[in-house]
């Protein structure tokens, strides 16, 4: 009986401590916000092309298999929509569509999209800010704020957000390499 109690305590600790930690961390100020920045040796308009062009987006955002405008006739601008298709190997290779609606569009410095996945798992905002540092250099600041609709995903937010931030930094690093390689060729 003593050992059954001990085992029950170990199992309870294994469950209760992580859940309590996640609940506390979920209340922090920057919950759901992933952000990163990088300095690129290229002019803002050169960098902007990589954010604005659907074909180029696929080259630096890993696991993105398609990017298109919801209405090809309508040019990019506030209110227009963009559809991203991501391949999710963590979900058996399922394709997942994320719809983004422009809420800010000021080339070549600001771009903000209100994003939401079609399954209704999350919605949020993805924003890019290009700061001209002069001398053909640009600082790219990326922010991604997400709200999770499922209670379990919401509970796991303190684990999801750092992983999302790591992925964001990796993608932006990839963008820097691509832009600088193209800029050198010119």
């Amino acid at each position, binding site marked *: 009986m003593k*050992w059954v109690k001990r085992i029950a305590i170990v199992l309870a600790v*294994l469950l209760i401590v992580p859940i309590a930690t996640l609940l506390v961390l979920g209340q922090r100020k920057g919950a759901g916000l992933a952000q990163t920045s990088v300095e690129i040796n290229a002019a803002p308009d050169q960098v902007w092309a990589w954010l604005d062009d659907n074909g180029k987006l696929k080259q630096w955002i890993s*696991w993105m298999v398609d990017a298109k405008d919801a209405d090809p006739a309508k040019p990019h601008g506030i209110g227009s929509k963009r559809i991203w298709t991501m391949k*999710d190997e*963590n979900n058996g290779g399922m394709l997942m569509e994320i719809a983004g609606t422009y809420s800010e569009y000021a080339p070549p410095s600001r771009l903000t999209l209100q994003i939401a996945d079609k399954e209704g798992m999350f919605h949020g905002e993805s924003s890019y800010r290009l700061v001209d540092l002069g001398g053909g250099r640009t600082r790219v600041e990326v922010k991604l704020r*997400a709200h999770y609709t499922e209670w379990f*995903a919401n509970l796991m937010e303190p684990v999801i957000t750092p*992983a999302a931030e790591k*992925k964001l930094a990796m*993608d932006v690093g990839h963008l820097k390499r691509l832009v600088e390689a193209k800029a050198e060729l010119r």
Partner: protein
Amino acid sequence: MKPPAWAQLVLWAVAGENQAEFVAGDLHEEFLLLCAERGPSAGSRWYARQVLRSAATLVGLRFRSGEAAHLAAAALIAVAMPLVLLDRLWSFVYSHIPLKDGLERAPGFWAANVVCVCACAAICGSLAHTQARAAGVAAAAAVGAACALWCSAATEPWLYAGLVILAAPASSMAVFAWRGSR
């Protein structure tokens, strides 16, 4: 004169309570004779060879007696299932990343898996009442961990995989030994 400890442990793990004592007794007699005739190293080599050659047959006998089936079920429930569930949990977490991420997990996730496997295997070890059963539980825990790793969706580093496969039986045996010493 003692046979190699690892071979004895393997024998206890594969033979089970019903067979281990008889088989170990017979092997030990032969081992002592060989040591006297050809020396301890030749005796040890012979002992290890005999254990490895008879392992499959002994496991088969153990399954037929029903004992191994219980151990396999215990290992699956106690070690493989938590690992598989954790893998599914991390996949769920990663599939919620807005712009998606790869199959590589953060070190913290691997550490959580190792802690969980050790705790579950230790619980199994604490429930074993005999050395043979403890060795069987430890072996089953290692097999359960290996199966769970094989089923995993993630790309596991070799270091992590090796650690899990070793940590599961080690923690099971450690708790059994600790409990026995008290």
